[in-house]
């Protein structure tokens, strides 16, 4: 089955990103295709490489990066939601005159159309959030 995933809450504050991660891993193990993981609302905060949790805790951001490397996952962050919350890639940072960019490896920033497209292309769209 072709599956799209929507993550709409931030890391650590909320279980959504953990549950989405476990779901994606399990779905891949069962032979399903993860078409895309889309991060919206505070979910965009899952994408910042500046995240540094205490050492005895899971690293939610790095975990997504690793999973993306292993399975060539498409991790997409909504640009409008990201800009509100200080998540910005190199090109956008230049355009906005900012001195830094912060998406972690494996994440790309794109438009909301990517979420709608996932809804159209996938057999299921599964939401993780409130």
């Amino acid at each position, binding site marked *: 089955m072709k599956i799209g995933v*929507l993550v709409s809450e931030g890391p650590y504050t909320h279980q959504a990103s953990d549950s989405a991660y476990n779901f994606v891993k399990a779905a891949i193990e069962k032979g399903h295709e993860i078409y895309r993981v889309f991060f*919206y*609302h505070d979910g965009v905060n899952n994408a910042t490489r500046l995240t540094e949790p205490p050492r005895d805790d899971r690293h939610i951001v790095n975990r997504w990066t690793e999973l993306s490397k292993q399975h060539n996952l498409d991790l997409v962050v909504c640009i*409008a*939601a990201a800009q*509100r919350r200080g998540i910005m890639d190199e090109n956008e940072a230049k355009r906005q005159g900012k001195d830094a960019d912060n998406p972690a490896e494996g994440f790309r920033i794109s*438009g*909301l*159309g990517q*979420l*709608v*497209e996932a*809804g*159209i292309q*996938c*057999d*299921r*769209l*599964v*939401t993780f959030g409130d």
Partner: protein
Amino acid sequence: MFTSSEDMDTDEGGVVKKFMFVNRKAPYGTIYALEGLEVVLISAAFEQDVSLAFVDDGVYELKKSQDTKPLGQKNFSPTYRALEGYDIEKLYVERESMEARGLTEDDLLVDVQVVSSAELAGLMVEQDVVISF
């Protein structure tokens, strides 16, 4: 939440799915209503069969005469009136949610279909994709 894509229709433009956006939150206090509306507007560009449902505090999103000046936030409620121009005309308001909040159809800023909770459940079952905000 799982959404089914069985019984998909197609037209010349390609796949047309039934999308329902479920609005559950008050317009201010959290960003869900505003960012939800942004998804709705983008979806119009994909020529899908889009409908909106308003339940729980989401019915407040359609309340007439919103004044956000004291909040220091933008009043985005006029955007709901623009949906018609995007060919998004199926707006459902759950009767139970509306009545529990002392509202009537006259309090709402756009034309809607008021449906019971059971009717809304029936509409949700017909959808290919349901996204909640």
